[in-house]
């Protein structure tokens, strides 16, 4: 999957099949066809529920909004295979709880939104951001990753204003 962005840059997901790159992006998880439990990242094979022997995990979009379970901020560049910008700019990460799916998903937070801007229980919404940029076979390519951004009031309402 690739999306053309302005200025002749091609956008591709940094990993295939985990999230969409449309203007309302969402994570792609899997749901067990038999018991209905969810998994993320998406995968094939056995359902993780010990009471279920299904082998059929079906790809499904996950909720775009959730609440902060916890968060942090990297002050030092992580080691490879993370491709840190130079000079390194600190960035935040958040683990966000999705109510319907009953899972917590860890992600980066958009650049410029720091730990001090976050709080456990805060509503968040899924977006995408550039992870790194590289020329691939002569094509200027942005490798995109999902990020958790503080949600606007409408998104907050759709998760019932939980805190």
């Amino acid at each position, binding site marked *: 999957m690739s999306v053309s962005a302005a200025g002749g840059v091609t956008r591709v997901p940094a990993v295939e099949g985990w999230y969409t790159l449309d203007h309302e992006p969402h994570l792609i998880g899997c749901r067990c066809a038999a018991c209905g439990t969810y998994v993320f990242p998406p995968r094939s094979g056995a359902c993780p529920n010990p009471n279920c022997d299904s082998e059929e995990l079906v790809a499904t979009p996950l909720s775009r909004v959730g609440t902060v379970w*916890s968060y942090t901020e990297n002050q030092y560049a992580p080691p490879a295979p993370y491709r840190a910008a130079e000079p390194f700019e600190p960035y935040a990460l958040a683990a966000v709880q999705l109510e319907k799916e009953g899972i917590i998903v860890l992600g980066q937070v958009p650049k410029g939104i720091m730990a001090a801007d976050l709080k456990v229980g805060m509503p968040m919404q899924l977006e995408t951001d550039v992870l790194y940029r590289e020329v691939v076979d002569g094509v200027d390519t942005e490798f995109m990753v999902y990020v958790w951004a503080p949600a606007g009031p409408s998104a907050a309402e759709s998760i019932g204003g939980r805190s």
Partner: protein
Amino acid sequence: MSDRDLVVLGVGMHPWGKWGRDFTEYGMVAARAALKDAGIEWKDVEYVAGADTIRNGYPGFIAGSTFAQKLGWNGASISSNYAACASGAHSLQAARASILAGFCDVAMVIGADTTPKGFFAPVGGERKTDPDWLRFHLLGATNPVYFAMFARRRMDLYGATSEDFARVKVKNSRHGLNNPYARFRKENAIEDVLNSPIVSDPLRLLDICATSDGAAAMIVTSRAYAERKLGSLNGVPRIRAVSTVTPTYPQTILELPDFATDSTAVVSPPARGFKDSLCWAAYEEAGMSPSDMNMAEVYDLSTALELDWYEHLGLCAPGEAEGLLRSGATAIGGRVPVNPSGGLSCFGEAIPAQAIAQVCELTWQLRGQAQGRQVEGAKAGITANQGLFGNGSSVIVSV
């Protein structure tokens, strides 16, 4: 004493440090020290349970045979275990199973490591289907990121402060001052911690344990063998329980190195989370309770994680760990000293050796040999440890 108890006949360690030498050198020092402490010869050992290290090539993957060969093939049976940070305890469990099944009477449990500088990074190459590789690639989710999220929850939910986390470091730095095996033997003040740079907010450099070289070994035996050798087992430390349980689905805490938790959509969370269940399985096997413990050695990968362990171990209720720390109960001289050895804070982490080192410390404490850090009158202690991918352990030792 129970027929299921194992006797700890001898323990030994190589000091923790950072030299980057062959890990087997350290292991040999620990092995010989444990044999000497046990008063037995290498030829008396019938089983070697090696804790693996994945960073030292083939010899690291076959630790049991690596050390058996290094000590000189003696025909002993062997096993090699990898269970991340719990590898040492899983090795102890393998030795214990062999002894309790009657396959042998005398076993050596051994683990040693040599470590690279800086953050633990994943194994090299591009591995886009390996979640451990992807967490670094997509998120830059280092190990301290996960420790930091636990710490942040304590702050937002329970009102913990950076000073509270620093107090854990101050306590452990005092405990480890006189421990000859500790790598860092320097007293830290609260300000030292607060003035160290933030690594993963809210955790600072001095809140996070280092990676170290080190080795630990022990000789464990059947009760019958120890009685023949020692006569009386009065005052001799015994392994009362070894818990190596895995989580129960669904796991609702975001654990290193996962992207996501299990789902609670169709199965409710278990009554006890993973770390609680590790500790309680040990209590249940030993027929003991948290109030029976005179000390604990816990896996303080970060200062804040030590506070989490107080609660998982049942030393206090959730949200009360900061109060327990401030009361002085977990310092030597208090009701239940935690990490009298100085913990990972003073040792740094030498993965395959660490869970063994925890039991070595309890052994010295229970024998009254923990000079300069003795928990007076200690009769029982518990260890707790957690590694990646559902590996963890808890061991109870008593006299």
